[in-house]
């Protein structure tokens, strides 16, 4: 095997390890976090502090009866949970987790696919997520599922516009789709200690991005597609056992994707001022990955915190926020950033 293939597979393995660990960890974090907020105990029986709850749940998912509702469209019903995860997992190939390191005299860029289309590819892959929901809702032969799917897709496409526009605004001063260049553009500091992260000049864009991210992942306060008080569980009402688990993982993976994107676009990605990114390559890669995962974790915790703190929007409110508030705000932010760049401020 050539050196390039081994390097690529190594990088893939690094991401896969992180991503597959995410779901069980987040399951624990979310349940303990909600318990903390609601003054309950949360899972505390399996292992110390209930830490192995994720493992126990995985075993349980494997052994549960798998119910395919009568009248369901079987091929689509089976394909939907797989499609929920594949695009979300694949988006990580364009997210850099370290600088260019030297391995045995050869330069290796710590990004799985260092392609020029970078973030554009990520957005394209993320936009495929909507098919999974529609397929699940359509194939289940259940009214709640169908309603949830239609709502979910309307919501996702409505907020995608604002999300895309805020991403475009970040690209203007950078002049590239490549996320490693976006990170490179944020490595300086102001006054010697304040990191030059995009979040400062792009604060409006960041807020738009963050709100849209909640809507894109169907998380509270925008979890209308699965509003349990009216739609039971929305598009995955009829799913059980491992298929349900895949939807469950899919939600966390979309959260991780958007958290990683937010960290990379607005918070310097794998880079943290004050950390020395030199030395043996494995050590550098570990430092880069740790910093990035830590930033992703902060966003994930924020997702959990918000979920257990806010009530749900109504559907008309949701649409109004997306089309009448976020979209104009995103356009305004874009023009403002472009004007500031022309003026030479950014």
């Amino acid at each position, binding site marked *: 095997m050539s050196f390039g293939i081994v390097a690529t597979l190594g990088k893939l393995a690094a991401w896969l390890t992180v991503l597959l660990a995410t779901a069980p960890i987040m399951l624990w974090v979310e349940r303990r976090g909600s318990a903390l907020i609601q003054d309950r105990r949360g899972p505390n029986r399996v292992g110390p502090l209930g830490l192995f709850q994720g493992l126990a749940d995985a075993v349980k998912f494997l052994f549960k009866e798998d119910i395919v509702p009568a009248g369901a*469209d079987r091929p*689509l019903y089976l394909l939907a949970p797989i499609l929920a995860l594949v695009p979300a997992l694949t988006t990580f190939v364009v997210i850099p987790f370290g600088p260019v390191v030297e391995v045995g005299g050869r330069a290796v860029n710590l990004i799985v696919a260092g*392609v*020029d*289309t970078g973030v*554009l*590819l990520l*957005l*394209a*892959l993320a*936009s*495929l997520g*909507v*098919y999974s929901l*529609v*397929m699940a809702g*359509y194939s289940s032969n259940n009214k709640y599922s*169908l309603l949830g*799917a*239609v709502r979910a*897709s309307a919501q996702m*496409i409505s907020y*995608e516009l604002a999300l895309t526009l805020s991403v475009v605004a970040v690209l203007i001063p950078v002049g590239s*789709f490549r996320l490693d260049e976006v990170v490179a553009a944020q490595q300086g500091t102001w006054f010697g200690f304040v990191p030059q992260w995009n979040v400062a000049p792009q604060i409006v864009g960041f807020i738009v991005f963050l709100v849209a991210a909640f809507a894109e992942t169907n998380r509270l306060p925008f979890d209308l597609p699965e509003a349990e008080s009216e739609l039971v569980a929305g598009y995955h009402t009829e799913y059980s056992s491992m298929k349900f688990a895949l939807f469950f993982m899919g939600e966390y993976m979309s959260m991780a994707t958007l958290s990683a994107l937010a960290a990379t676009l607005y918070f310097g990605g794998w880079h943290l001022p004050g950390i020395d990114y030199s030395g043996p390559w494995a050590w550098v890669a570990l430092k880069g990955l740790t910093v990035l995962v830590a930033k992703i974790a902060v966003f994930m915790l924020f997702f959990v915190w918000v979920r257990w703190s806010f009530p749900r929007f109504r559907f008309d409110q949701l649409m109004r926020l997306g089309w009448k508030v976020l979209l104009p705000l995103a356009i305004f932010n874009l023009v403002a950033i472009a004007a500031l760049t022309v003026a030479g401020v950014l």
Partner: protein
Amino acid sequence: MAVFALFAFLAVASAMVVVTHRNPVYSVMSLVVTLISLAVMFVLLGAPFLAALQVLVYTGAILVLFLFVIMLLNIEREAPGGGHKLQKLGAALAALVFAGLLATWFVAAQGAVEPVPLDAEAVALVPLARHLFSTYLLPFEIVGVLLLAAVIAATALARRGGTSVGEDEA
């Protein structure tokens, strides 16, 4: 090469499913496969920017609209058979004539025009953007007007009579 063969096969096979499948939802899903396969072709041809846009616009937006229409209008699977015998005969004849015409043109075009290999430079992002925002500035702004017309048309079509949008809906 193996990648090309795989996705060429996928593109053709899924395109066949789009036409032949009786359930419109399956047709749309196959179209998704077709368009993604075409995006892979673009990458192989050295136009990754086009490929990303293809996925973003076609599969990410336009086909979602198709799915919406199918789900909203409650189009169920097409009834098998149907149509008069003469109708079927006519359709077969028309298809034959069309295939014949295509074949004639294809043979006639052989050697008449020297095939020009796609220049990666011409479809790369930077020259593309440079042309779009200088040489083709006017068409670009006209596209804006076209999109404006589309916005107005869509809104007008969704209104029925003098009611505002969706007023008569449950």
